[in-house]
């Protein structure tokens, strides 16, 4: 059954990447399979948890030995405006006896204890490798528990060994489609109800966008799943339109919700000023087609104009410090041409950018912006990254947290733009933050001190005090 699911999500018809592939390649799927003896990316369980944990009032129970949850809980920066239950680490912590006799009973009792002690509106139940191998049927347990306790228990069948994070994202989406979306009715509906799909509210980025939607009178009926409440997601099928954020991770949700409930959607990004504006325009356009007030586009344009003006003015202030500085962008999410263009506007020279997840149009636009010799990077080994930085081919590295120490060991400024970042970079305010953060790190005098030779090194130019 899980196999069918996996094949089905790989066969995603709405995915632009996929349509360009041959039938055979498509079968192979879009997740990179890890190779023995290589560094590892996150597993499918990791991806599923990333996608669903931002449903903040639910309990998230991980069925497995201590490795899966014990080594990873509370390590993501998805924020909540209310309930903190999502940050509690729940796991069955399977022991040897469970492995021998099966963990289903143990799991069932764990569900009961969570209900008794925490009384959540729903429990998400995550499968992991060990129980999958011994044949624990979490779907059956979830069904029995749902019936027994009258509480939705949602099986998320994405054990780590089926693939990487991206596949896990998609399987999480399938779990929502199969067990959650459409199971409740919203208390109210309005003609401007919008779903935002694939936004996890990392460091609060949703809140860099939502106030603007509020100002336009657009109601976010559900964000899937940043700062979400279970009820919102369960009743999200009544929305008028949807925006799909962040690569193709949750494209299956957007497409199937269109099929099932007729909710039109578009794909957009909140990163970069022009992308943000385009997204607002698209949202307004789609909603008007679905019955929102006809002056919405006009009001949207007015808002865009004032926000853009303010943002560009703010970015302009950093120009003197940044002009001519060279940035290298090796990132997963925050990397579209729109970010590149904003950085260039701030005076930075982008010497290279990763394009692993970019679409063809994205690449064309980057080439247009950066010129013919645009350095587009598919993958880069830490060693190569280190070499580039060491040889001073860049003044700052913007990358995911894992590359941080590569940059710092090369004594080069670094800005974290992935998962566990401290700062929020979405929308207009976020772009200004991004530029100001670059400025803050690039102008820090420590980098000059660090490159000075030590008193005992050849080349030391320090003279004694007299």
């Amino acid at each position, binding site marked *: 059954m899980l196999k069918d699911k996996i094949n089905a999500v790989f066969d995603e018809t709405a995915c632009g990447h996929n349509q360009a592939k041959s039938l055979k390649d498509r079968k192979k799927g879009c997740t990179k399979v890890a*190779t023995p003896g290589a560094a590892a990316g996150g597993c499918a369980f990791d991806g599923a948890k990333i996608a669903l944990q931002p449903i903040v009032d639910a309990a998230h129970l991980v069925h497995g030995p201590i490795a899966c949850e014990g080594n990873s809980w509370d390590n993501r920066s998805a924020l909540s405006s209310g309930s903190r239950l999502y940050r509690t680490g729940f796991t069955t912590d399977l022991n040897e006896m469970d492995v021998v006799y099966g963990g289903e009973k143990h799991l069932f009792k764990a569900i009961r204890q969570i209900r008794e002690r925490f009384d959540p509106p729903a429990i998400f139940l995550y499968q992991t490798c060990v129980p*999958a191998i011994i044949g624990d049927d979490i779907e059956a347990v979830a069904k029995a528990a749902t019936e027994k306790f009258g509480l939705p228990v949602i099986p998320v069948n994405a054990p780590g060994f089926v693939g990487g994070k991206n596949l896990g994202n998609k399987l999480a989406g399938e779990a929502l489609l199969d067990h959650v979306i459409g199971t409740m009715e919203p208390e109210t509906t309005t003609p401007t109800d919008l779903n935002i799909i694939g936004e996890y509210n990392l460091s609060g980025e949703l809140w860099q966008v939502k106030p603007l939607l509020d100002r336009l009178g657009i109601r976010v009926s559900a964000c899937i799943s940043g700062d979400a409440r279970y009820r919102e997601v369960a009743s999200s099928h009544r929305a008028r339109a949807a925006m799909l954020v962040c690569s193709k991770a949750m494209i299956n949700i957007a497409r199937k919700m269109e099929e099932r409930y007729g909710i039109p959607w578009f794909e957009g990004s909140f990163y970069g000023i022009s992308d943000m504006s385009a997204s607002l325009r698209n949202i307004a356009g789609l909603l008007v087609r679905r019955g929102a007030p006809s002056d919405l586009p006009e009001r949207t344009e007015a808002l865009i104009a004032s926000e853009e003006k303010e943002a560009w003015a703010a970015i302009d202030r950093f120009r003197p410090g940044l002009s001519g500085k060279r940035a290298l962008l090796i990132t997963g999410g925050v990397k579209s041409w729109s970010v590149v263009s904003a950085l260039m506007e701030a005076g930075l020279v982008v010497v290279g950018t990763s394009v692993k997840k970019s679409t063809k149009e994205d690449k064309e636009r980057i080439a247009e912006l950066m010129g013919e010799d645009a350095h587009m990077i598919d993958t880069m080994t830490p060693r190569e990254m280190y070499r580039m930085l060491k040889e001073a081919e860049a003044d700052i590295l913007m990358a995911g947290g894992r590359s941080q120490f590569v940059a710092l060991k090369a004594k080069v400024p670094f800005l974290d733009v992935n998962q566990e970042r401290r700062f929020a970079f979405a929308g207009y305010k976020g772009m200004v933050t991004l530029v100001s953060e670059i400025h803050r790190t690039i102008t820090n005098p420590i980098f000059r001190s660090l490159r000075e030779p030590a008193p005992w090194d050849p080349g030391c130019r320090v003279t004694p005090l007299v």
Partner: protein
Amino acid sequence: MKTQTDAHQENRNLPGDFVSVNPLKMSAPLGGALFFLGLDRSLPVFHGSQGCTSFALVLLGRHFKESIPLQTTAMSEVTTILGGGENIQAAILKILEKGTPDVIGLCSTGLTETKGEDIVGEIALFRKKHPEHAGIPVVAVSTPDFRGSHEDGFRDAMVRTIEELGEPSLAIVPNQVNVLAGSHLTVADLDHLREILESFGLDPIFLPDLSRSLDGIVPETFEPVSMGGTTLPEIQRMGASAQTIVLGESLRAAGEALLKKCGVPFVVVDRLMGMIAFDRFLVTLRHLSGKDYPARLKRERNRLSDAMLDAHFYVGGLRIAAGLEPDALHDMVHFLEENGAEVVVAVTTTDSPLNAHMGRERAEIGDLGLLERRAGERGARLLVTHSHGRQGAQRLGVPLFRTGFPIFDRLGAPHRLQIGYRGAMETLFRFANMVWSRDPENGPETWYPEEGRHEAETHSGNPDMEFVPVRFEGVSALNPATGRNP
């Protein structure tokens, strides 16, 4: 409760608990990886699916603020069912293609152990198939995720390393001592110990030596192996040492392994924090070396005496809830109680003979959920555990003293000195300052809230969420019966 009997039958750690709420422990393979990271030019590899490696890598990175060399055999569902031998071989060959680590440390995981795979046997097979790589030390350790905690994995990796790489020696180097260093010791602790051993004229070999690998060195080249740590020749020379000093009860088995393989006698030092423990350690060193006490230590002991006097105003009577791995917990609890604090809750991760001797308490095996519950019941005023205690501390409204692994939301954890006279002094100051900086400011409503309320309106409260006053007298309001374990 009915579930309690069920639980005993199922041999659960926590009677009646089927769900671990906010885990305290980390997995055994992670402990194994930590051990191998303390060997020079070594590369730990998890035999399992990619996700386990990724989580361990991220967690170690967040604690040490270093990039961590750690790789995977990338098992899938199919290879797990068919057996992982081929993936192990492929992984080793791939690693050797890219470079030659001095040691490859292979840790199994829950996934590969579920099918009962024999990881040590797989390496023997590899050796047979690839005689050209006979010289590459590969140490395979069985570390199933469903057994034990990271302290156990660390020990098991050490035992296996000694078994594989230790070499018996006919000659004994008189002043050479082996130091088996527990996973709870910081970089600063190890540096301090080395200096002290040397000042007694001893020549120590530390196994492992995280003070040379995960101490924040800025290297000149970038290589995907650990840089620094115990070298392979050092491990091979351990058999010629006159004595082994085992730092931590959890490592007793490693001392025994070294005795068995190389005939080196060992002594287990179960505590290093605080005056009483360190006095005994120094007496032991003097006995082993026959050298007199270094003058510097006499001075440090004097300073500690003074610090204890200064700190006791703040630490005395402080009710503390502590959750750590057994070795670290044992040391911390005794240190705190010797300084007048009351450790009212002690929660730990795994079986240990020490668990019955945690000061006035017996340690319970459990999670942070249990620690939080007990701390609330017993009116603890301060929590001592790793960074994951932050949510519970906030809910309880008490400050969190961060120690152990992982500490991911503060800088400098590896450079904190906790052992010896100096470490005790610094730790006492931290505790005292934590309490002092949270001295409650009394107002008219403090003792008679009803009567005081009117005046209190003009009295500014404490709007700062970070500010958690530590009150000592609050305990009397609690039911004294719940203040202690029977």
